[in-house]
């Protein structure tokens, strides 16, 4: 683009874009009925604030298995198992999706990429509901939902790692007469393993967040008591649960990013 001379066409383009943006905003504002704030909003938000400031400390641990700590442990277990499952599932898909030659059209890689995109298209809440129909409500459905949903993202990250990897070790093993399995075991896997572990940890951070909301639809974890506390307007309990989730997420994020930095 030439910046010193703006032709009439370029000026016109600018106006078209501006009009388009204005049109999009008018359309959007029109589509949302601004009902205004409910009369109870201020009193409810004050109650929530009060609840968050005065959390129900007795809920933290009471040994019943329904308390905050046990529910957070369940949430972590869901995220952990789901991530492990998807890490194993996504490796073959990642090899399928990785484009290893410079050809313009690569049918194998395209098929793999389409599969991964399709998996990502299903929100984990929808998957959770589908799995609840299959194995009944509870944490197991949550594990399956995260296990399947994470494959979409992990597979994409893994396949990019495979595309970018250093292939000299592979070439060396092939030159020395190694078989395909030997090449994979001695050269390919060790080269990409640090990247795979780092991405898996990163996905674990995200899965912890996902696992904490799956309970909203009945797939176990901290979301279930949270939903219950919201529905019964038990604000001090809501407060302590929110506090617990925030704390858990911060701790997991910090631990994981420290380990990831050491993995390189």
């Amino acid at each position, binding site marked *: 683009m030439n910046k010193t001379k703006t032709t009439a066409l370029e000026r016109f383009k600018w106006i078209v874009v501006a009009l388009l943006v204005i049109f999009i905003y008018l359309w959007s504002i029109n589509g949302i009925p601004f009902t205004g704030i409910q009369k109870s909003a201020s009193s*409810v938000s004050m109650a*929530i604030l009060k609840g968050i400031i005065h959390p129900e400390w007795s809920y933290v641990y009471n040994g019943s298995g329904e308390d905050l700590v046990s529910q957070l442990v369940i949430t972590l*277990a869901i995220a952990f198992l789901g991530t492990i499952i998807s890490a194993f599932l996504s490796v073959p898909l990642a090899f399928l999706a990785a484009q290893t030659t410079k050809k313009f059209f690569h049918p194998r890689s395209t098929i793999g990429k389409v599969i991964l995109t399709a998996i990502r*298209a*299903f929100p984990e809440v929808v998957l959770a509901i589908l799995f609840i*129909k299959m194995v009944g409500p*509870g944490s*197991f459905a949550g594990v399956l939902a995260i296990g399947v949903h994470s494959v979409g993202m992990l597979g994409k990250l893994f396949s990019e790692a495979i595309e970018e990897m250093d292939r000299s070790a592979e070439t060396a093993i092939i030159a020395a007469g190694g078989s395909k399995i030997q090449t994979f075991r001695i050269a390919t896997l060790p080269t990409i393993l640090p990247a795979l572990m780092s991405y898996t940890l990163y996905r674990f951070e995200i899965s912890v967040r996902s696992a904490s909301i799956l309970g909203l639809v009945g797939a176990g974890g901290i979301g279930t008591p949270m939903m219950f506390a919201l529905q019964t307007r038990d604000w001090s309990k809501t407060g302590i649960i929110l506090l617990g989730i925030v704390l858990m997420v911060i701790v997991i994020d910090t631990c994981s990013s420290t380990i990831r930095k050491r993995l390189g």
Partner: protein
Amino acid sequence: MKQEVPQLSFVRRFHVVGIAITVVILILIYYSALITGVDVNAFFENADQFGVVLNQMKHPDWPYLTKIAGTLAQTLQMAIIGTTIGAIIALPFSFLAARNIVRNPIGRLIIRLILSLIRTLPTLLLAALFVAIFGIGPMTGVITLAFFSFGMIAKLFYDFIETIDMGPVRALQATGATMLQTIRIAVIPQISGQFMSDFMYTLEINVRSSTVLGYLGAGGIGLYLQQTLDQFDYPRTAVIILAIFAVVLVIDAISNYVRKRLQ
């Protein structure tokens, strides 16, 4: 002369670290499976259930598309307005949180703490909370998305502001310009492209997450998702999921195009 044979330490010779990590992970898997009640039998016994559902989804109820088109549009509208409100509020906060603009470390720390607290809460959790405050409807969805966008854009943005070229800023400060003048003349021209790019990226995320917000009563297509799933009406669920998929793909493509043009 004694010749020293190089020896690996015990820890490295027997792969102690690797084995320890493997054992710890296996123990964690075992207890996680115990806690979450993993039932492999139930999974395989009911695996055909999933097949049944998928089978019904194979024949989407296409005429239903006309019925959901309106709410699908509403989902988009919610995302656009929510992201915009969040971005506008995020702008001043990201300046306040940037190390090279504001020199007061305590104020900066407080703002950053608030921003990271907001980012910690998942969108759906915010939606559940705001439904309790603002009632059921698309307003709640807009507020939820605005809240999330605020935390996200402010963070992306103060990180970027800290990397700008400080030359013009110092030059203006040397001539005695006020803070607002400095920002307007020396900072904003450097960051407007990145700002638009971050905005598009957040919009993309919001379109995706707004599709399920309705599940909790925060407006948009999620409401229909909930209805059809509750009624086991899978041909209709399939239409909704395919429609969401198409919309997300289109938004992804547009936003990728715009982001490339802006950079």
